């Protein structure tokens, strides 16, 4: 069984890979707002993460407003994944 910490770390790496951030950030702060001026990631990046969540965890998000709440930072994403994952 994966702990929430392990899941958070796993998600962080998957997000870095999905958004091609390997050469941009040495590390991603899991508490920092993921999308916005601080990271420079935008709504299209957010949608890529939505696809990632469905692909890797079977979680379907179809509402943009709902997506915004879940994708606040890596930690909130991990919490949602833990509660709703199908894979």
């Amino acid at each position, binding site marked *: 069984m994966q702990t929430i910490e392990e899941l958070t770390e796993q998600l962080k790496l998957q997000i870095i890979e999905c*958004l091609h951030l390997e050469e941009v950030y040495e590390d991603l702060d899991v508490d920092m707002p993921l999308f916005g001026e601080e990271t420079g990631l935008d709504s299209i990046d957010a949608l*890529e993460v939505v696809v990632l969540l469905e692909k890797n965890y079977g979680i379907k998000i179809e509402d943009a407003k709902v997506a915004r709440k879940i994708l606040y930072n890596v930690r909130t994403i991990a919490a949602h994944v833990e509660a709703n994952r199908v894979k």
Partner: protein
Amino acid sequence: MLTTMAGIHCFIQGVGVISPQKTYDHGEFLPAVTHHDSHALTCIPPDFKQYFSPMQLRRLGRMPRMVLAAAAICLDNARVSTVDAIITATGYGAQEDMAKFLDEMLYQDETLLPPTYFMQSGYNAMAGLLAMNLKCTGYNSNFVSRGFAFETALQDVVMHLGEKETDRVLLGAFDDVSPQQYGEYIRMGYFKKEKIDHLSLFESKTAGTLQGEGVALFILSAVKTPESLCRIRDFRMLYRPADYGALSRELNDFLSKNDLTPNDVDVFINGISGDADRDQWNLSLRRDRFAHAAEVRFKHLTGEYATASSFALWLGAEILKKQTIPQAVLATPIPTGCPLGTALVCNHFLGRNYSFFLLTSR
């Protein structure tokens, strides 16, 4: 039969070209030829890290990178940092990005689709990216008129300069290769089935041409500056000419409307594509009317694509600015020391879309 310029002046202030030859470096003008061992001639890109941060690069596909880099090169060449309007042209769009989306769509059975590929596959995605990159909130349009995409876009630029004389307009043309287009064109008889060396393209006796691609950015304005490469005096499109006579008469009319005869042309830039059938009329025009001029050919270096006339425009502009014709494109020389004041481009795309461009150094 359309007179395009209607008394509007149009100067090329700067250029940025990325092509299957090393053309992005303004220090050199085709000094050496890059040989491609492939049925498709693909672009030699600059080092993108010079133009983009890692953050920008991460989400840019191959075509967006080339277009944005060429734009930066173009603005630098013109010694400007902003433009007032942006107009782009493409025949088939960024095919690689669209293919990535369609691939995922079909492979995943229409689920789990990446939005970035969809966005970048839009035909006007480059026009939008350029606007964001250059913070240009002025007029922005995109022409996708197949073999006339570049010409109709240029027409729009000229109209814009007639409406806003002080504006600087960025005109960009791009097309890339794709395996799907290759498959279609082979079946349509547009590309050669046999393998040939592209450098011997014009010795070929068979129908069909070679697949190519390119990106060309120009800054155009109604005002001449010290950086100006040349003036676009006039241009014309001719759709499916009925026969050689019609093409020939149209060209005569085009020149005479500009108070010129064939003898006034110093450089004839011939858009033949190595297609022994479809090149006939261009070869005849050159032989019948422009035997006295230096002849330049280029599609052995670029291959054929819908916006290839943009490469010809760049070539003509550089020749007039630098007063030299690189060996790589020179098919028939003229005595050295002859001033190169007037260049005429005669291009055809698949024998369907013919266009003429008249360039002058003044």
